[in-house]
């Protein structure tokens, strides 16, 4: 094995090994646990940085392990993988810092951080998987690693939520398995290939391929929370805030969306998908999810549930971008993978801060909170504007490219969806902002904790500020090399350019 | 019908008869006896059909098998009876409880 082949494995191990070590740690070893967590996160970030530089300069990072006869387990860090890798390793670091602050003094932290690390391991595995089988492996591992986080609190509500979460994800995984084995019996390979590997099949197999597409997308759509498979997501809100942040912005829903990207571009090929006639239904489904999620969000008083429905809506931008099947829309969809992550994680961090510091769980309790916690609410505001699509925050870039792409592909109806969605986004975010900044604060907060001069604990405050800043920078410097947008263009070129 | 076949058919009859008793009777002792009847039937088939030789001297191999089979049956019966006594001691009846466990 060359040195380059080791890098993907090291990326996996940088969270796997600390995770396993943490399981064995006694609850009281706070410092060692924190050291392991941060060392793992920093190592991963550094390794991913190396790969980013390498891939931009033409290196390939690939490792294979013989598995079944004719099938390998393979990890490969290509441009698309790196988009997701950079996002997840960056946000892991931030979330870890946040979680350390958030869970200070609460029980079972070794278990929590252990599964947290496994969760990230699975996510980077999903990102680097070079074929459907490896993808499935990490995809299922993600399900298993997140379950203990969802039921972490050990209440009856948490157990029920866990049950629902599993029912959806295991069912989805089973459909995917069926689709994957079927695909394998037809093609004899599962390797992700730019522009797909099924277009050569005899046209008599096209009905089978359409069914396989449906199986795979259904399986992935569960995690990506496409309607009607989204019900688990709001229920999973019983988990601690860092988990919600992780589920929504980095790991679970992103793994689903990323999988859809892989399937459309590198299993079927976007042009062949359009030929099969499966992209338009997918686009309509995504559009319906966007509108439905936003509509439901408006009527949630529970802040985390409102954010959850917002996630349902926002993740489908990615799917929409993919399903429009034009190069420009692809850029919009891919870049939203990163943008939505930055913005949504900020929002969840802020929600967690409000709950931890003031005991605020509901939108109706947020009157005047901007005065009590200005920095938190600044971050929240930035991210909310991003979600609505106001420039210069990153969300604007997404919507711009999606709109251009839809025009380019002649799908004008998408513009209506985008406009409606932005209005709805505004409808569920602006009242919050208005209440937080312009209403009088109540005499007492539901459950206030004292943090001295600062508005809240330092480990809780910095992460949302950093991610909010990142969301702004991603929007402002979208044209710079290595910006998410430029990277998404780099990928889109590979997927569409034909000799 | 040669005697060999007659023995074999008798053996089959015993086998099926034993099976009937095994299913129908509730008392464990009867079940154990039924199993012994079945076993005898099998041994009769095994040994009876060994007589189909031209010389009239039966094939010795099935006879050795029957001896082995009998010893196994004796051992199994001993264990079964012992177990039956324990079941009777523990539940007060030498029969299996009704089918609620199915």
């Amino acid at each position, binding site marked *: 094995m060359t040195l380059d082949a080791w890098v993907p494995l090291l990326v996996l191990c940088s969270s796997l090994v600390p995770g396993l070590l943490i399981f064995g740690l006694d609850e009281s070893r706070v410092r060692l646990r924190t050291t392991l967590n941060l060392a793992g996160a920093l190592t991963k970030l550094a390794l991913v940085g190396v790969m980013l530089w390498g891939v931009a300069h033409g290196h390939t990072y690939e490792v294979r392990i013989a598995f*079944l*006869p004719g099938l390998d387990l393979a990890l490969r860090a290509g441009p698309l993988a790196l988009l997701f890798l950079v996002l997840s390793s960056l946000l892991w670091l931030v979330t870890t810092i946040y979680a350390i602050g958030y869970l200070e003094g609460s029980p079972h932290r070794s278990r929590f951080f252990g599964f947290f690390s496994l969760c990230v391991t699975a996510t980077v595995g999903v990102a680097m998987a070079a074929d459907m089988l490896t993808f499935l492996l990490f995809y299922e591992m993600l399900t298993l690693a997140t379950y203990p986080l969802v039921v972490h609190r050990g209440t009856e509500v948490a*157990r029920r939520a866990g049950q629902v979460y599993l029912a959806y994800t295991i069912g989805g*995984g089973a459909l995917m398995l069926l689709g994957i084995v079927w695909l394998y019996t037809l093609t004899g390979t599962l390797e992700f290939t730019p522009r797909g590997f099924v277009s050569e099949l005899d046209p008599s197999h096209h009905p089978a391929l359409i069914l396989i597409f449906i199986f795979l997308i259904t399986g992935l759509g569960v995690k990506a929370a496409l309607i009607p498979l989204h019900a688990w997501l709001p229920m999973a809100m019983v988990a601690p805030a860092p988990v919600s942040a992780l589920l929504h912005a980095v790991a679970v829903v992103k793994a689903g969306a990323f999988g859809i990207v892989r399937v459309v571009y590198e299993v079927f090929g976007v042009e062949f998908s359009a030929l099969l006639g499966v992209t338009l239904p997918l686009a309509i489904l995504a559009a319906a999810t966007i509108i439905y999620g936003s509509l439901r969000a408006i009527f949630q008083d529970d802040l985390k549930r409102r954010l959850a429905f917002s996630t349902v809506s926002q993740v489908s931008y990615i799917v929409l971008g993919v399903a429009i099947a034009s190069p420009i829309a692809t850029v919009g969809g891919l870049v939203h993978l990163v943008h939505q992550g930055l913005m949504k994680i900020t929002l969840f961090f802020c929600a967690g801060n409000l709950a931890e510091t003031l005991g605020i769980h509901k939108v109706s309790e947020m009157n005047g909170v901007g005065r009590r916690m200005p920095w938190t609410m600044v971050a929240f505001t930035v991210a909310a504007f991003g979600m609505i699509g106001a420039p210069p925050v990153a969300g604007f870039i997404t919507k711009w490219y999606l709109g251009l792409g839809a025009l380019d592909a002649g799908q004008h109806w998408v513009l209506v969806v985008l406009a409606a969605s932005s209005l709805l986004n505004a409808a569920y975010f602006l009242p919050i902002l208005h209440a937080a900044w312009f209403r009088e604060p109540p005499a007492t907060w539901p459950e206030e904790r004292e943090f001295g001069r600062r508005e809240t604990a330092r480990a809780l405050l910095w992460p949302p500020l950093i991610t909010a800043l990142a969301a702004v920078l991603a929007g402002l410097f979208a044209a710079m090399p290595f910006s998410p947008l430029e990277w998404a263009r780099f990928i889109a070129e590979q997927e569409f350019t034909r000799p | 019908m040669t005697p060999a076949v007659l023995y074999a058919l008798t053996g089959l009859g015993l086998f099926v008869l034993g099976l009937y008793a095994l299913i129908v009777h509730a008392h464990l002792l009867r079940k154990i006896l039924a199993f012994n009847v079945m076993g005898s039937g099998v041994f009769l088939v095994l040994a009876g059909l060994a007589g189909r030789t031209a010389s009239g001297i039966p094939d010795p191999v099935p006879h050795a*098998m029957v001896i082995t089979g009998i010893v196994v049956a004796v051992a199994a019966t001993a*264990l079964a009876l012992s177990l039956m006594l324990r*079941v009777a001691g523990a539940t007060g009846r030498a029969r*299996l409880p009704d089918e609620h466990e199915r």
Partner: protein
Amino acid sequence: MDTAVWLQSGLTAPILLPLTGALLAFVMRRRATPIGLLSVVALLGAVILQVPSLFADGPQRLAIGGWGAPLGVDLYADGLSVAMLLMTAVVGLGISLYAAAYFRDTPARGQAFWPLWLLLLTALNALFLSADIFNLYVTLEILGLSAVALTAIAGGADALVGAMRYLLVSLLGSLAYLLGVALLYHAYGTVDIALLAERIAAEPATWAAMGLMSAGLMLKTALFPLHFWLPPAHASAAAPVSAALSALVVKGSFYLLVRLWIELFGEIAGGVATLLGLLGAAAVLWGSIQALIQTRLKLLIAYSTVAQIGYLFLAFPLAVGTGATAWSGALYLALSHALAKTAMFLVAGNLLRFGGHDRIADLDRVVQRLPLSMAAFALAGVSIMGLPPSGGFIGKWLLLEAALTEGRWGWAIVIILGGVLAATYVFKVVGYAFTQSENPHQAQPVPATMEWVAFALAVAAVLMGLIVSQPLIVLEIGNPFGIQAEVAVQ
């Protein structure tokens, strides 16, 4: 040592080592535990040492007493036998280590356990190595009787009644099998499997023998609807015994059925294969649903065994046309199920020891209090559900591949559905392990050995999914599935 002696010690050691251990443990009651552990370690060593020579020389045949078939009894080892031997030795070692700790407080039961347990291992190994259908009858009887006696060791009305029912079923199965042997011998003049394979023809005697032997073995393997005896017996036995019954004993009769099917009956069976598959499918669904509605952990695990046995029988129809893929899949499932199910039953034993009960809804935060055991349960569950990477996943993948290659949708859906149901019942347990019970209970200490053994076996079940090629190559030694003869690994 010259090769001849080496060869025969390779074939006889798996039988003689545990047998000698059993005799010594029987005579020297007070030393039974160290004797037992030593024999099982030696057994594992002997089986492992045998593998390289099989790779080098292909399948091995040993004519005991120098006579050779048809007069004498032959031992025969190919990849299939060795895979089963390895499974037995590994799981056997795990169960032995566990039992040593489990019976520490009840020495009388321990002294009764060891000879019976070593005889059970003897019987299994003799069964996996025998090439003679009458000899196989004797091994089946040893297997059945030792399993029954072990079940009864737990004492208590449940265990005794379970053992009694098990005994009757086991004896009935053996007699049906023996009648089949009688018919085959008198029809073809031999009881050697290889010779029978040459002579067998599609005629009434063969069909009758097939019916009798298959029915007997199905009864012993607890294939739906003949599974009724299994849950009460497996659930009421002592933990190490439950593990042995579910992991190993039912595999013995299943192995024999596969052997007979491949060598003798497969060609002439016709629609019977489909019937076996349908019963298997029914077992998958029925067993899983029953597992799901159980309120006691050990019964849940026992019904899970009923379901998993069903999976094994899906290979019978799927092998028609796809051959090695389907058989490899079923055997892979059997091997990883042995590891996973042992781990599960041992965990159940730990929980029983810990809380004094196995009511699922009252597990009361065992995730925190016995983390290692619950980790073992969850990991074993991963394999039972068939999620990657685990041995169970590989088995299901191969079965699915066999089903979909031929476009047999019905079987594929059963395979998938069974996995989803398995996930539901496994996570039912895991979910309750996180929550606080309304009936908090006294906690008894659980010896560390008992936790670590379960954990190690569960990890092994998962690792089976990462080291796939080696077990598959072992399985192919001597081409036991009789297909693709030209590409068989020699």
